[in-house]
């Protein structure tokens, strides 16, 4: 499946990196191509040169490690705070897959075009380097979180990070997908999510989860959520 190109001239810049660029970047911004990303789409494969990088407006993309088909785990998540394709600006590849979890709008540009603009435009360079740092900081706690925190805490963290990244209380996602991202079994997710539904924190229906009480979910999440949120906030106020 390929991303659909939007010809209606939409593609408003909800992406926070693009929104932070000064006006003189306008010409370059016009060269970005608005696209719609659909759930399940793979944006890049492990060790593959990155064809396009994506500035997300409303989509949610997971960076996934695939040790084997059965043991997959999400190492990071990208929403409107960032871009998919950091390795392209660093001049390399990574052994991970980027996959769309929640469909939505994005703006894309070829890997080569972002690389040359990154070198030319100091504002874009600083924003992308700061984002790289934030991404690194996001990936690291997932290590400690996977090691020490309960599935209930991790599921709560995941739902909140996804909600922030998409900017919506409604997430189109199945238990099966969440299980693969958290590196656990589907049955365990069903149990943990069932408990949250009975407590009135979330509502589940076929392939959808609605967050009804974000504060309640936050109370159930491990401290990792607060750490991640604060880093994203700092990124956009500095």
């Amino acid at each position, binding site marked *: 499946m390929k991303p659909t190109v939007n010809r209606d001239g939409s593609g408003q810049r909800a992406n926070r990196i693009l929104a932070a660029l000064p006006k003189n970047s306008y010409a370059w911004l016009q060269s970005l191509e608005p696209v719609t990303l659909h759930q399940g789409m793979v944006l890049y494969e492990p060790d593959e040169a990155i064809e396009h990088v994506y500035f997300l407006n409303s989509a949610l993309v997971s960076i996934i490690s695939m040790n084997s088909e059965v043991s997959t785990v999400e190492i990071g998540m990208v929403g409107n705070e960032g871009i998919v394709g950091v390795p392209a600006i660093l001049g390399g590849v990574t*052994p*991970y897959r980027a996959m769309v979890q929640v469909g939505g709008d994005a703006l894309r540009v070829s890997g080569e075009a972002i690389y040359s603009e990154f070198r030319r435009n100091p504002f874009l360079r600083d924003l992308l380097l700061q984002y790289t740092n934030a991404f690194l900081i996001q990936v690291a706690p997932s*290590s400690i979180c996977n090691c020490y925190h309960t599935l209930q805490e991790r599921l709560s963290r995941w739902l909140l990070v996804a909600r922030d990244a998409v900017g919506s209380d409604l997430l189109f996602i199945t238990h099966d997908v969440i299980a693969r991202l958290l590196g656990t079994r589907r049955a365990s997710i069903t149990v943990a999510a069932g408990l949250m539904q009975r407590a009135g924190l979330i509502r589940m229906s076929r392939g959808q989860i609605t967050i009804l009480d974000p504060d309640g979910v936050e109370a159930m999440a491990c401290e990792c959520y607060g750490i991640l949120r604060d880093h994203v906030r700092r990124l956009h106020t500095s």
Partner: protein
Amino acid sequence: MVYGSVPTGRRNLATVRTALSHAVAMKNRILKALPSKDYRIIAPHLKPISLSKGIVLYEVGEKIGDVFFLEDGMVSYLSGTSDGETLEVSVVGNEGVVGIASILGDSTAFRCVVQIGGRAYSLKRDILRREFKRCEGLNRVLLHYTNALVVQVAQTAVCNKFHSVEERFCRWLLMAHDRSASDTFPMTQEEVARVLGSRRASVSVVAAGFQKRGAIRYSRGVIRILDRKYLESSSCECYETIAAAHSKVDA
């Protein structure tokens, strides 16, 4: 920050010597990978120092003052929970630079501790930032290193999630061995447990198994690597994944 620096008189001499024969004398792979034009700009600012085990180079959230190019030895970035649990999120040896966060942002999000003592060159963070913007070669190498570091951090997370203490300990020993100047380094079981995010008792059991098979000798808090091949065959694929990412930096 307290670390033993080389006496001033010898420092100048050492700087001159390294500037003359950088490709030969240097073990740090970032410095070695620099085009000589960029190296000549950086070299006068490099200060040879020795880092001893246990020194904290940065605390969480601290603004970075100096960055460190290690010649040998190993530095750990540690993450912690509010309950006092810790876990190593990445290591740096002569393949990298300690304090790369200074070119990306301002401060580090992790505690940074010398795990295996060794020699290094320190450089003012402001000089690194300035030259990172001006020197094409330095810029390219540091970005490549950042990419490899992202892989290392991510792969360590994956490894902690899926692999046994035995596999993780093997990976850690191999990474430490690659970075250490000798087959022997001091590291108590308590310290190993802290970097692996495991309990001391589990480390003790695994270490006893390695000793029985003649892979390591472990006594009084000192590890000696005896059979690296055995460790390579018992490690998970994460060691290879991380080493492959770093080998692309100076390829």
